[in-house]
């Protein structure tokens, strides 16, 4: 079932056209990645879906309801953890719920426990490492009541090893809860490893030039990185990105 659909989205800033007739959809419980060169308008797409900007043309529909220009319809995890420094980790992960209404401390505690942050419930963000902060930020997004989570290059600021751990962790937690996820990245391997479907964007003005179904079954093991199929996937996406 289609949960989020974006139709004929067009947006320009002054004379600079960023999006031109962009179309895509995300099914319920699906993990979709948007892959594009930097500066291809990925953040603009998120700002539009998040209701921060109004499109010049086109519409965004979530669960059959138009959300064009409506803030708070999606759950969001930004590139930087963006945790409030004066809130404890527990209070931080509850923030998304708090903004929308009721908070559920028990579930939050359990999730922190599972993410290995149980001992840091009452710690402040500056006492945590970069990876731990991103985990907290993801739990905050997961706990928010909205039906879809937008992830904006969440691991791009982490070092290689931590990023790898985080990807694995994200897959585990996704397998357990199966939330609908729209993921933006510029890392091809990350996109293949994590997603069900990859949308390859063109340069400005952005549109989907290729849609790629990832052929690997779930749950995915790390070994697939070395799989022949993985490399051919990577090659063909790389090709698509280059030959636009």
């Amino acid at each position, binding site marked *: 079932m289609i949960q989020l659909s974006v139709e004929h989205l067009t947006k320009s800033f002054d004379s600079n056209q960023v999006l031109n007739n962009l179309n895509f959809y995300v099914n319920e419980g699906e993990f979709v990645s948007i892959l594009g060169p930097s500066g291809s308008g990925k953040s603009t797409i*998120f*700002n539009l879906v*998040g*209701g*921060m900007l109004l499109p010049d043309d086109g519409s965004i529909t979530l669960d059959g309801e138009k959300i064009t220009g409506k*803030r*708070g*319809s*999606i*759950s*969001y995890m*930004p590139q*930087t953890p*963006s945790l*409030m*420094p*004066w809130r404890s980790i527990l209070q931080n992960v509850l*923030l*998304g719920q*708090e*903004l*929308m209404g009721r908070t559920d401390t028990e579930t939050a505690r359990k999730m922190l426990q599972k993410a290995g942050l149980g001992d840091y419930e009452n710690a*402040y963000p*500056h*006492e945590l490492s970069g990876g731990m902060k991103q985990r907290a930020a993801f739990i905050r997004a997961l706990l*928010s009541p*909205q039906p879809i989570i*937008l992830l904006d290059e969440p691991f791009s600021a982490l070092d290689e090893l931590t990023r790898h751990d985080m990807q694995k962790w994200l897959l585990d937690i996704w397998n357990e809860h199966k939330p609908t996820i729209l993921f933006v990245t510029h890392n091809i391997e990350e996109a293949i490893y994590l997603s069900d479907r990859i949308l390859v964007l063109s340069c400005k003005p952005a549109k989907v030039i290729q849609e790629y179904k990832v052929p690997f079954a779930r749950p995915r093991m790390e070994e697939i990185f070395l799989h022949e199929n993985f490399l051919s996937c990577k090659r063909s996406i790389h090709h698509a990105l280059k030959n636009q």
Partner: protein
Amino acid sequence: MINVFRKGWRPASVLLLLFILWEVAVAIAEVPNWLLPPPTDIVQEAISGWTGFRQHLQSTVMLSLLGFAIGTGIGLLTAVLLHLLPFIRESVYPLLILSQNVPIIVLAPLLVVWFGFGILPKLIVITLVCFFPITVAALDGFRQTPEELKHYMLMAGASKGQLFWKLELPYSLPSLFSGLKISATYSVMGAVISEWLGAKAGIGVYMTLASSSFRTDRVFVAIFAIMLLSLLFFGSILLAESLLIKWKSRESARK
């Protein structure tokens, strides 16, 4: 408490040294008492005149506290108003700076002409000196809220009220406390100046009486009282800060 001693012994010993120097210099140069009394005389006067001085001190403390409270309230209110209504900020902010350029010494007698000798003109004087540092500090704090935190809050659907209460206000607290510290010390000065205008009691009154009768020792008692009072006010704000902004103190402890 141990921390206070560890950090405080150096300035305290410098102060002590200065007093000893003063005592010796006055004795050697045989300066008459009405010109410059030695510290021992001042201490003696403070002890023997305590019963008479107490009511003045009490009155000044009450006046400063009340003025500080009102000044803080008005300062915060102004800051919030100017922050939430950018149009008003642009038209009023420069005028606020001008308001600080009016010399209080000139304004104070005028206030008496307009409002009489009651408590109102005194509170106006204290409020005038107190509100400005708070308004500026709070406004700066609100404005410096990081863009990324704001972006998250908005994407997550925060209303304008939630944005203020859950992000901008807590973010501005450390900055706000800098303003409060300045205002707390100003409030004592403001209270003393306003008492010069004419009051029944207060350190300001005690001071004018002392200086017009050449009781220099009493003038110094008043000066030290003002200094101690300011220090005490400052200290209480510091205490409130460390209680309210725990995350900040833990952060600096780590560094």
